[in-house]
């Protein structure tokens, strides 16, 4: 069985926009963080698929995916730390609670 590459691309694109959508509508900061993860996963799928289907002789795509995962982990760590800080200051993690700075 071999699934044509387009399907993967469609999947990844969908995933990407779902992530974006989530980022825009979720009210919980953690949720927003998770939707960012979705976006990154879409990217990873892209890399892997491209590597696997189009340029199978080199490993760039896989390695890039790997790095993305690592960096995402670091990013998430810092983000969560900051969210905790937000929680400490405002006693909730509702995205609407960080609207003080504006105009």
């Amino acid at each position, binding site marked *: 069985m071999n699934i044509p590459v387009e399907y993967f691309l469609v999947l990844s694109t969908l995933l990407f926009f779902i992530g*974006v959508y989530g*980022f*825009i*509508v979720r009210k919980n900061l953690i949720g*927003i963080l998770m939707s960012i993860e979705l976006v990154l996963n879409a990217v990873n799928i892209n890399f892997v698929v491209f590597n696997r289907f189009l340029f199978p002789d080199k490993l760039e795509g896989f390695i890039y995916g790997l790095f993305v995962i690592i960096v995402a982990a670091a990013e998430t760590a810092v983000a969560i730390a900051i969210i905790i800080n937000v929680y400490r200051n405002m006693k909730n993690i509702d*995205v*609407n609670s*960080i*609207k*003080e*700075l*504006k*105009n």
Partner: protein
Amino acid sequence: MDYTILLLAIPFLMFLIIGLLGYKMTPKFSGLLGSAGLAVVTALAYYTAYRYFLQAAEGAWETITAFNYTWLDLSNANRPDLMIQIGMLLDPISVMMLVVITTVSMMVHIYSMGYMHGEEGFQRYYAVLSLFTFAMLGLVVATNIFQMYIFWELVGVSSFLLISFYFKKPSAVRAAKKAFIVTRFADMFFLIGILILSYYTKTFDFLKLTAVDAETQQATLVFSTMGGKMFMGMSVTSIALLLIFLGGAGKSAMFPFHIWLPDAMEGPTPASALIHAATMVVAGVFLVARLFPVYYFEAPEVLHIIAYIGAFTSLFAAIIACTQTDIKRVLAFSTISQIAYMMVALGVSGYEGHDGLGFTASMWHLFTHAMFKATLFMAAGCIIHAVHSNEMDAMGGLRHHMKKTYYTFAIACFAIAGIFPLSGFFSKDEILVAAFEADKILYWCQTFVAGLTAFYMFRLFFRIFFYDEPNYEHTPHEAPANMWVPLAILSVFTIFSGWFPFSKWISANLIGYEIHTVWPIAIGSTVVALIGIGTAYFLYYKKNDIPDRIANSCKRFYTWASHRFYIDEVYLFITNKIIFGGICAAIAWFDRHIIDGFMDLLGWTTNTVSEETKEIQSGSVQQYAWVFIMGVITIVTLALYL
């Protein structure tokens, strides 16, 4: 004749010295200084006249350019000799003017020492007098039309300064402003005329402009450059010369620019005598005379216009003069009327030989008029000095109190009325002859004006010196010597200047000729004059109510005339309501609200926009992301479909 430069230099120096250091001098000293300086100038002027007229060779009078310094160089590639020069051109008329100006000015200087005694600003007065003398001399000896314009402006400003001498009197200030602006308005036409003329002829020089070719009967340069050029149906020559004449009309108070002269009487009387009677106001006549060949050969129709304007003005002014009660105003209107006389003479004049009689006569009349009108003004000054009023009603029976003034005034009156053998008779008579030979209408008109002149002058005379005495609070006394001596001298001129062989000396084409008197006209004019005098005697010798009855019988006309036919009001309306109220205010509003408003609008818009767009920065991170992704999509579309 290099010494002639002193004619200009000395008065100018006097002006500088008295003007700058005057406040350090005593009034008396500054007055003496000014008079002394002018005495030298007068002597030089007479010497020049002597050298010029009495030591000259036979034949045509030569025109001497004593000196000619380049003052400003406007030349360029295709206009090599377009430059403004300050020079001294001596020919019969300018030499004659030198004599007139210096004489009258000298007299005025002396006279003023008495008249202006104790006025504050005495030094200022003398400084300005010197400035005026300088400017007037510079005007008459101008070698090029632009020099004439320069000094033209200078006499204008010195007249302004003299009229506004009593600058604490609002009326004086108003009069000064009026005089300056009206003449300035006329000068604008003069300037435009100069521009047009010089644009074509590529020169300012009088000698080049007035060069005449005898057999082709053309002013060579003007004809060759401007001849046949038309603009809007008129030949440019006529336009230019008409504009130049308008400039002259402004200075010479021709209708409709005459309105400034009566008000100018707000100034000190001697100043009026010098500027607004004898010298400056005849500048217009002099200008036309100076350019006469061009007028005659290239734009005869303009000459006709001049003649008719002159005739109308003289009549008009004479009528008004009959109704005025302020003696200086009467004299002012008579001045207007007399200058108009000279204009008529120029207008009807021919060029050669006896045809050029008009030219001669006008210059002659200019001379005599300067003398007797100055006399009249100074005498009036003595009277005002004595009575402390300008109004006729405050006067009467003065012959008992001030004999000398009385006689001089009488002489002058007879002269202006044109009674044989006084100077006025000859000059006026020649004008009438010229008019008769050229144009009958003008002749009758001017004869009638002669009658009117006699009438109103003697009205004045009788009202002042005979009539009934009002009760003076302190009896009038004769003027001091330094005031009546000049009067005497001038009246001597008034008597004898009629016997000078003017036609030998002054003629349009610089070649002397013989005048043969035309007796019928002479007698006619004398008769008319006598009629005028008789009427005046009949009406004003003693107090009676006939004048009032006559005035009432033609009431409307009388009031119109006494209000100077409401010309001033018309001007006031135009300036105040239309120009200030209409144009200027409108433009100022437009500037503040439309143009400036637009600039402010720009700023306002920017600020408002920046305030209104506040909400875009809503502070919600999700909305940020929304904008972000929208931006991405827009860019993609741009990139793909652009």
